[in-house]
């Protein structure tokens, strides 16, 4: 193959980039240029939106004028629908970048007698393509013809002729089709379109819907055959390739303070690596959110931006509560250095959360991101799905060099719960906060379970949360082992007493 007789390199299939986030990665460059692509799925899967976005983005981003042929919605309805995705069809039409053709097929007013062909449609489409110089086209959905015309023999022959003709015109076509029983489309459109087939689906799990996209077939091109979650937001379609991010991010050796001298002390006195991922896990009331607030506080004090995803507290509640340990976050919010995004985890599905978070991060461009807590996501999907989501989130943050701190609620004190095991490999620094129950009181203890690439303390340290913040209490290690709270004080008093009497004698 290397010694090919022809001097030219083998031409790979030319592709038309879709401009849709993620889809170009999945299709490795876009849809086959000058050929038809079938998008199939059940009603409400987002077929029309995907096709519309392909055509509109072609006109806006790639200087390829597009024709939208709708057999179901009038131009007015389409314009209204696309406006919700942030595109102004009227403006694009006025600038001759786009044209909308509404082809109405009304069965009840058509009588058939004798032989015919679909030259009327051909002439109409040809005229629209030529007067616009259209390079892209959406046919939504040509199946309507099957409802309007009864002579299937003629119709099928004409459809075959239509797609041959469109190929000869060099138009990149997306056609939508309703999914049928055991076939991609009810009317077998895949018979005419053999170049590229994309299948859309909506899956329900725990009452939350997740849209998925799969490239079933792509003739002449390698593609990723996996199923990818995708979203339809106010910015259009976002496909999330699970594997598009890797482990290629840069590793900074800069250290940033955790905001708490006590935590820094545990980490060799310098704090976290910039761009690392920190997990703070512990039982309820062990001070996880406080640790998060410390980091936010120190980042904002350095003039860096911080994004705080709060899934349990409202921004006001968070700010009020943090004042009790001597941290006032309100001025930073006012200055625009701190943004608190508070939502309930159960509000949407995992993928929506991920996309919303990534969009927010991309927009705000923070240096520090806090997710408080990640535990609630576990209720939204299987362990695999949660892990996949967390991986993508962590990869994304790392690739942008963002320091991330996540908190995780530990119901047992064992710090080995399933969700943590799932994400532990993603974590660079893992701090465990525990409640130690001794002599009728619960005392807070903190330790560093792991911290990649830095020397760290191996001690479990008692700490106090008060108006002066997080304070480590000097360790007591005596013959009785690790003591905390009043037991430590009692032991210290006893020790002091013995040592003073010892001195006195």
């Amino acid at each position, binding site marked *: 193959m290397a010694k090919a007789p022809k001097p030219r390199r083998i031409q790979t299939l030319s592709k038309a980039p879709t401009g849709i986030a993620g889809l170009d990665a999945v299709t490795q460059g876009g849809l086959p240029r000058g050929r038809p692509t079938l998008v199939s799925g059940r009603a409400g899967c987002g077929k029309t939106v995907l096709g519309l976005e392909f055509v509109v983005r072609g006109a806006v981003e790639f200087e390829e004028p597009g024709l939208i042929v709708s057999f179901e919605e009038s131009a007015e309805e389409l314009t209204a629908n696309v406006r919700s995705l942030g595109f102004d069809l009227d403006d694009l039409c006025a600038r001759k970048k786009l044209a909308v*053709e509404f*082809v*109405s*097929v*009304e069965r009840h*007013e*058509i*009588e*058939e*007698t*004798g*032989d*015919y*062909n*679909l*030259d*009327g*449609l*051909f*002439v*109409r489409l*040809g*005229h629209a393509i030529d007067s616009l110089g259209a390079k892209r086209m959406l046919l939504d959905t040509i199946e309507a*013809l099957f409802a*309007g*015309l009864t002579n299937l023999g003629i119709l099928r022959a004409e459809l075959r002729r239509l797609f041959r003709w469109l190929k000869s015109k060099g138009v990149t076509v997306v056609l939508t089709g309703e999914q049928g029983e055991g076939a991609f489309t009810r009317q077998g459109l895949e018979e005419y379109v053999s170049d590229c087939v994309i299948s859309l689906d909506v899956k329900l799990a725990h009452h939350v819907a997740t849209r998925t996209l799969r490239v079933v077939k792509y003739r002449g091109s390698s593609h990723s055959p996996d199923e990818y979650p995708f979203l339809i937001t106010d910015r259009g379609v976002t496909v999330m390739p699970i594997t598009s991010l890797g482990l290629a991010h840069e590793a900074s050796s800069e250290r940033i303070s955790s905001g708490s001298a006590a935590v820094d002390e545990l980490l060799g006195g310098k704090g976290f690596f910039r761009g690392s991922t920190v997990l703070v896990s512990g039982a309820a009331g062990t001070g996880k959110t406080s640790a998060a607030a410390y980091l936010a506080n120190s980042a904002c004090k350095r003039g860096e931006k911080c994004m705080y995803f709060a899934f349990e507290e409202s921004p006001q509640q968070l700010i009020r509560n943090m004042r009790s340990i001597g941290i006032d976050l309100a001025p930073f919010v006012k200055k625009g250095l701190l943004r608190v995004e508070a939502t309930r985890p159960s509000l949407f599905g995992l993928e929506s959360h991920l996309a919303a978070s990534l969009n927010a991060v991309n927009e705000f461009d923070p240096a520090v991101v806090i997710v408080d807590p990640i535990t609630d996501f576990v209720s939204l999907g299987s362990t695999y799905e949660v892990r996949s989501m967390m991986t993508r989130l962590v990869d994304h943050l790392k690739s942008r060099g963002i320091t991330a701190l996540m908190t995780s609620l530990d119901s047992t004190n064992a710090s080995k719960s399933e969700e943590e095991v799932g994400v532990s490999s993603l974590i660079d620094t893992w701090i465990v906060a525990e409640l130690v129950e001794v002599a009728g009181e619960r005392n807070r203890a903190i330790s560093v379970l792991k911290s990649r690439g830095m020397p760290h303390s191996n001690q479990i340290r008692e700490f106090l949360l008060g108006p002066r913040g997080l304070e480590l209490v000097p360790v007591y290690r005596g013959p009785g082992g690790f003591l905390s709270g009043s037991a430590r004080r009692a032991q210290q008093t006893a020790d002091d007493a013995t040592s003073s009497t010892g001195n006195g004698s």
Partner: protein
Amino acid sequence: MTPPRARPSRRHATKKRVASEDKEFFQLRLYVAGRTSRSQAALQNLKMICESHLQGQYRIEVVDLLVNPQLAKGDQILAVPTLVRLLPPPVKKIIGDLSHIERVLVGLDVRPLPRGAVS
């Protein structure tokens, strides 16, 4: 809703108009694409049917979409030949070469036997 359109081509237009107030007037438009044998057949069939059933109360206008492609939009023409009954309302469409006379008459809402036509 439809924009003002250009005047259709009248190259093959056939006018037969006889004043008859008691009968409905049929305004018909036949869309074709080029002078194919099918379009010629459709026009022949249509003329024949009109002459035998609608004498003096019809007008046929022929639109060639290859000459005026922009006219396909207005009447939502998919297939050719398509016969559009513009008058009397409602608008009706018959597609095909009009070779089946009975079906054309049904499509046009023309009663083949005027004697039986009461109500």
